[in-house]
């Protein structure tokens, strides 16, 4: 059965390359549902019997003399559950998004195949093969953007990540002479340390942790939003999958710690995560390009996962996985919303948008829900995730990380409101904008569903990740359907929601007690000036957070991107200098030959 899924994905990828875009979307949509079917079937392994098709849970592929081991584990099942649903949704969204078929669907199906492969692979070789396959298929998707910065930065960072991972794999293979993941436990000492560290560095590129994030803003802001939704929602989680796999499932933490005992490697990861969360949030607040804002917000939100992994207690890891799950969905919604906005208006600059909420109410509602989740408002599942990480930080007395993390959480309100106000509220500047096509709306609301389910039942989410935690030797934290309990406090979702409902009653009475009249946007207080006279611009969206910018920008100016640019320029200069040698004149080459001979002769004489 499993080989059939792999085969059909390849076949579907080939077919969708040649057919029209609508047909391609339909084929891709149904084909990408099949891996989900396998996931549902495997759910019975972890105590959720839903369907029973008898899909085998492991497989071996014999490829050119090597054996690739594929099998499902609790961890990959959980991560598959958060990444794979994005694919059919994106296909559904893309049904009316693309005007022509230029290979998007084929490449997305290849990415799906690669993602599925990465999650299933049980040895280093298949992991690396599928990782490269995913990197290259996503690189070709990035290449469609035709933006030099995006393509180059993605290429350079992907190659760097691939080398780091390959380096780690080679060391492990050299030490261990086995490629099976389960054999990594055998190694220790310096080689083990270097191998794990370089693997984590490689994954950190895809997980966009702060110093290695420089590619993300370019790529996220220049590619098709439907692809970026996968990139931000899904692909970044693969980086965290790799981290979790090597750090916790395979006890990489102990290997790191056993070699250098005086440095807390966990804490270092948490610090990097906290800095990501803090600085990316501040930068996101000051952005004007909607996609760039979302890109930096993505880096910030992913930082929380890194913090969770860094803290490393079961509580923190539960929070991190919860956050990863939420982030996959709400960030996908937000990027797809940006796609809808661009599809309908052709604009990305927030200062040029505005007032779309009444024109596209359903898009607005989905975006609102995603933003509530992003800002961790307790009426979405976003809160429980961040709460768990906060609790973990307090429990471990991480006094440096906890305030940074909390203030980054407050910063999220600022850029959330920037999106809400700049894009959806305020002055309407687009008269002939319609609601998005039905397929896009459907895609958005499918993604909203889990956010709504897991706010009522945060306990179910903990149940879902329980097998993965147990496989890594961690205890699941105490919870019921509605409530999560830690050693510090308790969070009861149903108490919040029911009280909110009840507290709505007086508000609703006040709302209904007196009639109101809905007036037009033009009837607005402008110090008495009638709007029709001058039709002034009413959208206060240009340079929105100016006071904050004035204070904060001097401290943000020399960012990481700046240093990467310096390195890039240095390499360029060096390459230019080397290139000067090749002047193209025969005489110069003759002189080189003569000089070289003289050098040899001189060397011989000196000896």
């Amino acid at each position, binding site marked *: 059965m499993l080989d059939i899924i792999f085969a059909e994905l390849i076949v579907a990828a080939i077919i969708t390359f040649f057919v029209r875009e609508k047909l391609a979307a339909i084929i891709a949509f149904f084909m990408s549902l099949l891996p989900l079917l396998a996931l549902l079937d495997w759910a019975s392994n972890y105590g959720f019997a839903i369907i029973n098709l008898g899909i085998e849970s492991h497989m071996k592929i014999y490829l050119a003399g090597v054996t690739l081991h594929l099998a499902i584990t609790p961890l990959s099942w959980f991560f598959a559950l958060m990444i794979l649903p994005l694919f059919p949704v994106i296909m559904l969204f893309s049904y009316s998004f693309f005007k022509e078929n230029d290979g998007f669907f084929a490449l997305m199906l290849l990415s799906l195949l690669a993602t599925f492969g990465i999650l299933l692979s049980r040895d280093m070789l298949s992991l690396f093969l599928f990782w490269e396959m995913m990197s290259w298929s996503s690189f070709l998707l990035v290449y469609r953007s035709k933006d030099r910065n995006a393509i180059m930065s993605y290429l350079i960072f992907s190659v760097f990540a691939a080398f780091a991972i390959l380096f780690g794999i080679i060391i492990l293979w050299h030490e261990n002479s086995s490629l099976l993941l389960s054999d990594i436990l055998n190694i220790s000492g310096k080689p083990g340390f270097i191998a794990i560290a370089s693997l984590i560095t490689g994954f950190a590129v895809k997980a966009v942790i702060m110093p290695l994030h420089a590619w993300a803003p370019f790529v996220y802001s220049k590619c098709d939003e439907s692809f970026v939704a996968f990139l931000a929602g899904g692909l970044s989680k693969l980086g965290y999958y790799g981290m979790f796999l090597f750090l916790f499932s395979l006890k990489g933490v102990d290997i790191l710690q056993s070699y250098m005992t005086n440095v807390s490697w966990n804490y270092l990861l948490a610090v990097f995560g906290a800095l990501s969360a803090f600085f990316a949030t501040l930068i996101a607040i000051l952005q004007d390009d909607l996609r760039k804002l979302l890109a930096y917000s993505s880096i910030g939100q992913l930082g929380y996962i890194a913090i969770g992994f860094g803290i490393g207690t079961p509580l923190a890891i539960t929070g991190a996985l919860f956050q990863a799950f939420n982030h996959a969905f709400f960030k996908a919604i937000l990027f797809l919303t940006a796609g809808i906005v661009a599809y309908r208006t052709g604009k990305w600059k927030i200062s040029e948008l505005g007032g779309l909420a009444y024109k596209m109410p359903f898009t607005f509602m989905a975006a609102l829900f995603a933003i509530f989740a992003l800002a961790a408002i307790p009426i979405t599942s976003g809160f429980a995730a961040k709460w768990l990480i906060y609790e973990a930080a307090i429990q471990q007395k991480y006094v440096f990380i906890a305030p940074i993390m909390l203030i980054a959480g407050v910063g999220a309100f600022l850029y959330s409101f920037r999106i809400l106000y700049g894009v959806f509220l305020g002055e309407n500047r687009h008269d002939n904008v319609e609601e998005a096509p039905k397929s896009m709306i459907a895609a958005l609301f499918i993604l909203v569903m889990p956010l709504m389910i897991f706010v009522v039942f945060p306990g179910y989410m903990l149940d879902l990740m329980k097998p993965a935690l147990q496989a890594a030797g961690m205890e699941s934290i105490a919870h019921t359907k509605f409530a999560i309990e830690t050693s510090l406090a308790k969070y009861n979702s149903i108490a919040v929601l029911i009280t909110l409902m009840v507290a709505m009653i007086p508000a609703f009475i006040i709302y209904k007690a007196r009639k109101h*009249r809905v*007036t037009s946007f033009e*009837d607005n*207080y402008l110090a*008495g*000036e*009638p709007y029709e006279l001058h039709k002034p611009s009413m959208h206060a969206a240009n340079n929105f957070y100016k006071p904050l910018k004035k204070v904060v920008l001097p401290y943000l100016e020399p960012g990481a991107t700046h240093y990467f640019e310096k390195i890039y320029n240095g390499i360029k200069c060096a390459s230019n200098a080397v290139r000067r040698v090749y002047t193209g004149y025969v005489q110069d080459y003759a002189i080189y030959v003569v000089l070289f001979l003289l050098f040899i002769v001189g060397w011989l004489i000196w000896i």
Partner: protein
Amino acid sequence: MGLHNGDKMMRYEEWSKLARKASKKSLWMVHFCTGCGAVEMPPVMTSRYDAERFGITSMATPRQADVLLITGYLTVKTLRRVIQVYEQMQSPKYVIAFGSCTINGGMYWDSYNTIKHLEKYIPVDLYIAGCMPRPEGIINAFIKLMKLIDEGKARGWEKYQKYYDRYKENQRRVFNFEIKEEQKEEKNEEH
């Protein structure tokens, strides 16, 4: 603008007495500072005369206010803004016109651009005579307005709704400086 199309007429008697008592004791004003009257407002609000002890506060926007205080003469251009502000206020709303300029043009009685009788364009609940009235006069006017509200006589906003078309016609004429033809001839003959 058609602001008042949706509002159905409602008898004042249907209002509960409590609501009237409340609105009388909490008069929030937006003072439209035209002309020289604005200078009389700071003493009214600050320590010397302290209007806040009657629940009178000044508000920043017409949406929040109950009383529109017009402090002095109005040119046609300003009248347009005053009407915009008045229509943005939420009923029940009251207008206090301030100084002789609003009553009959005052010292600008023969000016080509100053409106002479404010109540031709918006309903005025209360005039304060004087050029300029003193702060005592203003506070006295507010107390008088409270009494009128209590007795159910301050009903300018209802009048505005009822004769909306006629007010609009007057406003249109004054905005366009429109002289009717027969008027022109008649007046010429008189001369």
